[in-house]
Each structure stands twice: as structure tokens, then as C-alpha cells.
């Protein structure tokens, strides 16, 4: 499993490198290859004219904006369309979107650049070339009108897709000149001038999402809803012990059941039942006696894994460091010393739409219908598993019923669906995982422990800080090429010295941050916010302990360490102001604060909580501040922040996957509890863009949710919480 995951990561890495190159020269590529296509497009009567790869205009002025990134609820489809429309100067009310496929992208020399959607990159790493595409299309449409009227293009103005020539009092529209514009050469990329974001009219506005209507009446077709002529359905069960295999099964017990077509091995580790409907396949699989070979992993448990991590806290060899001064000496000679060990568990993504994939494989063509965060990795997986070259493969991507990092590079479900469908040439087979399968075979958020030590001088100043994270590595599981000379900095996300992406916001005169790699047999992967989540708990909860030991106010203590980090400080100040930090609260209500950086953006949060005499926690209100540089759609940024509170609070209150007999114990929502509406605090969002960088939105704010709540609990009880989730912690 490890080997194949590694190979998949290699494929996606290669495509990412190509994608990055294409992003740099993306427009040039796009505008060079569009011409032949647009000529074709015009031949279709009344069809849209392709002005360039990203923009199509229909005769009725409808503007179709092509989207390369995946939509999983985060609003990227709408945000990207806003950026194109802003430069295009079209009528926002006439904008629709169209998803391109990875096969189309490949056929056109990756004119749309990278399609992968993770790491909060959807907008920030495509904003430049999509805005340029919008601007280039506008210039061509204006030129077409100028040529038709035989006037200088500089005399034209455009508002909402209506082109006007003031001196002659003439007007036309994008729809009327689109066919002519599509035949023009693209403008010189150097002549394209993008708008100052402060002048945005469509971008920067909280316009409504473009993709809401079909989510309200059941008509949206998710991948799990795909229906194809003659389609069969498959249910699958992989060895519950990670790393195990199928030893055998007695198919005679189920073959006579209604609708059942076949019982089969899938890749040595799994058994599938194929039937005419999924329910029949699933109930037959449940009735199938299967013998598993646990490959010696059945003795592993949460207890043995905890021992492994604790061992890492004392290990001499480390796997990545951030260092300045001499932290160990400074702490040893400090007037006051503190030490604490924190723990965070494995977590499942639990997307609402379980993993699924529909595949149709013949000798000539391989196709899948799938929800994916990385369509090109899906295409690579399809090609690899079907044995057909990429140009005979196609991925029809569906908007995701949740992603959160689960549907990224690994594509395990595509490999499985293709392996099953290969046995039924030319017949589509829809494979759906049960919820139990989905939670038993995730790529979990990695487990870790962290020992924090600090020294204070007599005035209560922080003179030394030592952070030692011991835990599992995502790169070791799926991306070994990113580990150089045994060093794996990814697990220290948010604690980096370098600015720009995930920098530690504090200046400490003597600092030592270390990662000690301790891998388990459990598959791990990125989980919305990835390692910022655990590291923010460790750092921000311990800084709170240190601040209190120093006898200082939580915000004031942090502020004193942040003089060299004005953007980190900016969101801390913004959240403190909005949350009335320092002002009285109703009796029994307590505040906690946290700040952190990830995905190029700066986040801070204040939580207000109370604890009743029985120890029941209530989170009343959370205020979050985010500086993501440019705010493309403040309404959707607020939605992401609200959602990050729910995702982060669920993890804080309930989230825990424990290992028993080598397998996951929590395999459905009865044991893997999810926060419900009744527990949702009032969330207030402060967006404080500084307009000088492009940061992410989907992930950054999750990291500050747990530490803000834990610090508020600390204020309420006088006792720090050092282990998650809270369901295991007695608060009174």
C-alpha cells in the first residue's frame, strides 16, 4: 500500500511541476493554442465563441467561465469566476461556469495549468493567470468592436459587457462581437495590465455563490448519484487491519442472492461484491464470510502507538529543526522553568459523501466519474490501473460532497473501482464505500505528542522555548521524495523561521523546535489544516501556560513577542478589539485567545466558554480574524471561517480514532461523533486584508479554534487541557 501510494504521489508531483511551469507561462500557452479551437467553436451555429481557454461568450451575451480547480463547498468556483469576470468587465448576472476535464487539459498541453485543489491553493495560485485571461479576452472583444466600427480601440468603453463608442454614440455587446473577437490574435502578454484590487467591482464583493440552486432541490448530481445505462454496483471491504490481506472467502454463501453478479478479490487486500444495485451488493458483502491475514499488525493498538511516540520525546536523533540561540541552556539557567506534554489523536475526514467512483473500462477507452480534489491524479490512477495510455483515459469530475484533503493525491478509490470494472469490459460499475469502510480506511490526520519547555527571567520575559514534536509523518507515508537527508519539515508546519507560508509569529531569543519521526502502521494524510492544527494546539496552549506563569495578560504577553511579526500581530489586535478583550464578561463566561499562521494567511481567534457544575462545556461565541491578503469574496470567506469553527470544534470536543487489534475502532458517526447545530457557537468574522499578498482561506482558521477554546477552559478552571479530545477530559 505504501509503495503504491508513493508512486501515486510521484505522478502527482510530476504533474505539479509541469503545472507550476504552465502557471508561469500559462497564458502564453493558452493564447497560442486557442486559435484553432475557437475556429471550431464558431462553426457551431449559435454556440459559444471561445475567446480564449478560459472565456466563452454566447450570442445572447452569456459568459461561460471555465474552471480548472475542484469545488468541494469552499466556494472556489465562484471566486475564480469573479476574478475572471472582474477583468473581463462582463455582466456578472450572465456568468455561468463550466468544469474542464483533465483529459481536455492534457490534450491542450495543460492550457488550464494545475487542477489540484488542496492546501488552500485554489484561488491564490491561479489568480494571476485567470485574471490575465479575463483581461486578454476583454482586450480582444474591444478590438473586435473597434475593427468593426473602424475606430481606435482607445475610444471604447465597456460596462457589464456592453461596449460603447462615445464619439459616435454607438453601442454593441460582447455576444455580438464574440465571433469576430475569437478570430483575433491574443494580445501581447506584456500589454495586459491588471486592475488594482482596490478598484474591484465584482471580485472583492460578497456576491452569492453560482452553484446553490441545484443543492436545494435534489437535482445536483454528485458522483455517488451517477446513473449510466446498464450500470452495475459494487460494495467493497478492505482488510480492517491496516497492511493486512484477504486470506479467503466463501462465495457460495451469497452467490444465489438476488441481483448478485460476482464476488472478487481487489488488489489482494480487499473483497468486492458486484450486483445490480448497491444495496444488494452491500448486504451480500455483509453476509460473506471473509478470512483476513492481518500481516502481524493485529497486536498494534493506541497504547503501543502512544509508547512509540513517548519514546520519540526522549530520542537523540531528530528529523527537522528550527533553531536560534541556545534554548536548552537558556531554559536550564532561567529563573522559572515550565514543561508540559501535549497529545493529539488520529482523526478521520468523514466527508459526508463516502468514497465512491464509477468506472467503465473497455479495450479502447477508460473512463471514471468521480469526486476528486486532484483530477489529474485521478487520470494518472485511471491510466495506471487500466493499463491504457493517458490519451485514452478520461475523468468526469463531479463537485465533491466534502473533500478536506481526503480526495487528493492518493486516489485509492479510483484504483479499486477500475480494478473491479476491468472484469466487466464496457459495462459501467459504480463502487460505493459504506460509511464503515470510509472510516476504517481513511488517510488519517497523523497522531503526535509534543513536549514543550520554556524559561522565564525574573521579570517574566520568555528567554528560551523548546518544542519537540514526536509523531507520524505524512511525507514518510505518501511523499518520501520530500524528505531530504532524513529531515521532514512538513510536520513542523506553522513553526517555520521563513516568512510567507506558515511562519512562527513569535521572536524568542533562544529557540529550539524539533521534529522526531515515529511512524505507525496507520495510513496518514492531509486533513483540512494539516499539521497547523496540532502545532497550533501545542504552541498556543503552552504559550498560554507561560503567560499565566509570568503573571501577564494573554494578549499582552503574546504582543510583546510579536514586534517583528506585524501581520501576525495585526490579526491578534483585530480579534482582541472585536471580541472586547479585557472587558468584563457575564458571570461564569471565560475567554481564551490564540493566533497562528498557515497557507500564507494569518489567523487569530477568541473563544468565550462556560462550564456548568456537571462539567459540561458550552462555547458561546467565537470571534475570528483572518488576513488572507486579498479577499475575493468576503461572504464565502466568512462561510469558510464559520465552517472551520465547526470542523475544528468537532475535533476539539469529540474527534478521536483509536486503534484496537490493529484496526480503527470508530467506524461510524455513533462512535465518531460530529458536532451538531445545537453546539454551534455564534461566530463573528473579521476579515482584515492588507492587499499585499495572496493567502489561502479554506484551511488557515481551523488551527486557532481548538487552542482558543482550550485557553478559555484554562481561564475557567485554572487547569490546562493537554490532551484532545475533550470528551475524555473531566473539566470539573
Amino acid at each position, binding site marked *: 500500500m505504501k509503495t503504491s501510494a508513493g508512486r501515486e504521489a510521484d505522478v502527482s508531483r510530476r504533474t505539479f511541476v509541469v503545472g507550476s511551469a504552465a502557471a508561469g507561462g500559462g497564458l502564453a500557452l493558452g493564447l497560442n493554442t486557442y486559435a484553432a479551437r475557437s475556429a471550431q467553436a464558431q462553426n457551431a451555429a449559435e454556440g459559444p465563441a471561445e475567446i480564449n481557454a478560459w472565456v466563452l461568450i454566447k450570442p445572447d451575451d452569456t459568459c461561460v467561465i471555465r474552471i480548472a480547480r475542484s469545488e*468541494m463547498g469552499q466556494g472556489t468556483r465562484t471566486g475564480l469566476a469573479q476574478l475572471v469576470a472582474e477583468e473581463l468587465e462582463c455582466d456578472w448576472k450572465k456568468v455561468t461556469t463550466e468544469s474542464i476535464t483533465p483529459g481536455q487539459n492534457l490534450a491542450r498541453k495543460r492550457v488550464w495549468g494545475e487542477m489540484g485543489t488542496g492546501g488552500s491553493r485554489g484561488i491564490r495560485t491561479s489568480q494571476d493567470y485567470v485574471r490575465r485571461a479575463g483581461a486578454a479576452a476583454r482586450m480582444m472583444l474591444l478590438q473586435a468592436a473597434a475593427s468593426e466600427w473602424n475606430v481606435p480601440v482607445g475610444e471604447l468603453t465597456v460596462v457589464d459587457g456592453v461596449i460603447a463608442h462615445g464619439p459616435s454614440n454607438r453601442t454593441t455587446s460582447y455576444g455580438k462581437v464574440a465571433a469576430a473577437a475569437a478570430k483575433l490574435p491574443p494580445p501581447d502578454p506584456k500589454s495586459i495590465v491588471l486592475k488594482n484590487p482596490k478598484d474591484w467591482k465584482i471580485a472583492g464583493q460578497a456576491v452569492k455563490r453560482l452553484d446553490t440552486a441545484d443543492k436545494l432541490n435534489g437535482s445536483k448530481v*454528485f458522483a455517488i448519484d451517477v446513473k449510466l445505462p446498464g450500470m452495475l454496483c459494487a460494495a467493497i471491504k478492505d482488510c480492517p487491519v491496516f497492511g493486512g490481506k484477504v486470506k479467503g472467502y466463501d462465495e457460495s454463501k451469497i452467490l444465489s442472492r438476488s441481483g448478485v453478479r460476482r464476488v472478487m478479490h481487489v488488489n489482494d487486500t480487499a473483497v468486492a461484491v458486484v450486483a445490480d444495485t*448497491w444495496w*444488494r451488493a452491500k448486504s451480500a458483502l455483509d453476509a460473506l464470510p471473509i478470512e483476513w491475514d492481518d500481516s502481524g499488525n493485529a497486536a498494534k493498538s493506541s497504547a503501543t502507538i502512544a509508547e512509540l511516540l513517548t519514546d520519540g520525546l526522549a530520542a537523540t536523533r531528530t528529523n527537522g529543526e528550527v533553531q536560534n540561540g541556545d534554548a536548552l541552556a537558556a531554559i536550564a539557567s532561567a529563573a522559572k522553568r515550565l514543561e508540559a506534554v501535549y497529545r493529539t489523536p488520529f482523526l478521520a475526514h468523514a466527508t*459526508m459523501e463516502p468514497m465512491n467512483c464509477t468506472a467503465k473500462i473497455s479495450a479502447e477507452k477508460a473512463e471514471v466519474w468521480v469526486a476528486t480534489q486532484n483530477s489529474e491524479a485521478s487520470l494518472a490512477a485511471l491510466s495506471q490501473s487500466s493499463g491504457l495510455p493517458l490519451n485514452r483515459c478520461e475523468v468526469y469530475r463531479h463537485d465533491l460532497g466534502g473533500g478536506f484533503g481526503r480526495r487528493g493525491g492518493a486516489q485509492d478509490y479510483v484504483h479499486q473501482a477500475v480494478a473491479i470494472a476491468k472484469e466487466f469490459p464496457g459495462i459501467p460499475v459504480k463502487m460505493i464505500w459504506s460509511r464503515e469502510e470510509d472510516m476504517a480506511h481513511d488517510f488519517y490526520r497523523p497522531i503526535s505528542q509534543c513536549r514543550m519547555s520554556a524559561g522565564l527571567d525574573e521579570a517574566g520575559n520568555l528567554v528560551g522555548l523548546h518544542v519537540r514534536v514526536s509523531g507520524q509523518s505524512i511525507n514518510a507515508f505518501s511523499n518520501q521524495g520530500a524528505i531530504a537527508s532524513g529531515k521532514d519539515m512538513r510536520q513542523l508546519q506553522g513553526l517555520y523561521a521563513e516568512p510567507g507560508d506558515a511562519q512562527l509569529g513569535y521572536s524568542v531569543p533562544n529557540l529550539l523546535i524539533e521534529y522526531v519521526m515515529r511512524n505507525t502502521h496507520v495510513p496518514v494524510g492531509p486533513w483540512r489544516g494539516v499539521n497547523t492544527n496540532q502545532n497550533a494546539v501545542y504552541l498556543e496552549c503552552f504559550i498560554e501556560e507561560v503567560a499565566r506563569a509570568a503573571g501577564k495578560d494573554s494578549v499582552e504577553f503574546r504582543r510583546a513577542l510579536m514586534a517583528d511579526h506585524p501581520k501576525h500581530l495585526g490579526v491578534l489586535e483585530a480579534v482582541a478589539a472585536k471580541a472586547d478583550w479585557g472587558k468584563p464578561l457575564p458571570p461564569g463566561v471565560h475567554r481564551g485567545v490564540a493566533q497562528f499562521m498557515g497557507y500564507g494567511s494569518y489567523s487569530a481567534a477568541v473563544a468565550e466558554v462556560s462550564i456548568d457544575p456537571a462539567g459540561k462545556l458550552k462555547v458561546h461565541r467565537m470571534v475570528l480574524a483572518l488576513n488572507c491578503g486579498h479577499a475575493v469574496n468576503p461572504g464565502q470567506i466568512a462561510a469558510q471561517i464559520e*465552517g472551520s469553527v465547526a*470542523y475544528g470544534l468537532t475535533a476539539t470536543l469529540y474527534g478521536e480514532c483509536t486503534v484496537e487489534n490493529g484496526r480503527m475502532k470508530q467506524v461510524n458517526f455513533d462512535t465518531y461523533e460530529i458536532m451538531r447545530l445545537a453546539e454551534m457557537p455564534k461566530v463573528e468574522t473579521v476579515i482584515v486584508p492588507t492587499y499585499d499578498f495572496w493567502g489561502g482561506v479554506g484551511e488557515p482558521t481551523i488551527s486557532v479554534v481548538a487552542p482558543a477554546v482550550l485557553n478559555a477552559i484554562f481561564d475557567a478552571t485554572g487547569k490546562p487541557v493537554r490532551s484532545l479530545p475533550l470528551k475524555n477530559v473531566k473539566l470539573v
Partner: protein
Amino acid sequence: MVTLNINGKVHEIDIEPDTPLLWVIREQIGLTGTKYGCGIAQCGACSVHLDGAVVRSCSIRVGDLQPTVRIVTIEGLSDTSSHPVQRAWAELDVPQCGYCQSGQIMAAAALLAQTQRPTDEQIDAAMTNVCRCGTYQRIRAAVNLAADLA
């Protein structure tokens, strides 16, 4: 053979009587707006109305349903997304990924049919469906808005 009245239409279906209503709606009837989330009545993605009351269809066997029971799915809530709950959801841009929203809308519609202007506590008690994107704050606001629109 099972007889079901779904969205006002009577269906005669040749199916094992222990099949969950959810899967008959999705696979035999072909209405896929009702979603599979957990199969154990925990998440509410499969919520539908039986004679106006919201139920989790993954845990109801079709053989246990009387032919006279009126089953309404998200597709049958209104013809043109005009139900006050759907209008409120649109107005406040509630959905993110959208997967759980059919169930959320059905739960909200049943609540408002029973209680014209629910209190916060009544909303808390009635809206117990899981949303992993975390749209709860907007769901609460939209239930209140739907009460205004009704």
C-alpha cells in the same frame, strides 16, 4: 411486491421487503436527492417526510410501510424550489458542498410545518443532521428567515 406513494405517485416495486427506504428511493425509483451518509440514522442525510413527519429513510424497511403512507423526498418538496425553506436557503447562501442539504431542508420544512415560529431551543432540538462543512450558523439563520417567508 411493495407499494409506495412517493411525491404523490404510486409505485409498485419488486424488491426484498427488508430493503431500506433510502435505497429504494435512490435505486429503484431513481430519485438521488436523498443521500446516503451513515446507514444507521445518525447523520440525517437521508431525511424524508412520512405523512409530514421527518424520518431517516436509511433505517426504515420498505416492507414495514403501509401503501397509504405519503412519502415526500426533496424532489417533491416543491415544483420550483419555492418552498419557504428553499427560498431562505438560497437567500442566505447556506450550502457549501451541498451533500447534506437535502436532509437539512427536509428537517427544517418538517419543523416549520409543526411549529410556525420555532425558538432557538426548538431549532436546536429539531435540527440534528450532520453537516461536515459546518453550515450550522447559516442553517439557524435560514430556519428563522423561512419562518418569516412562510
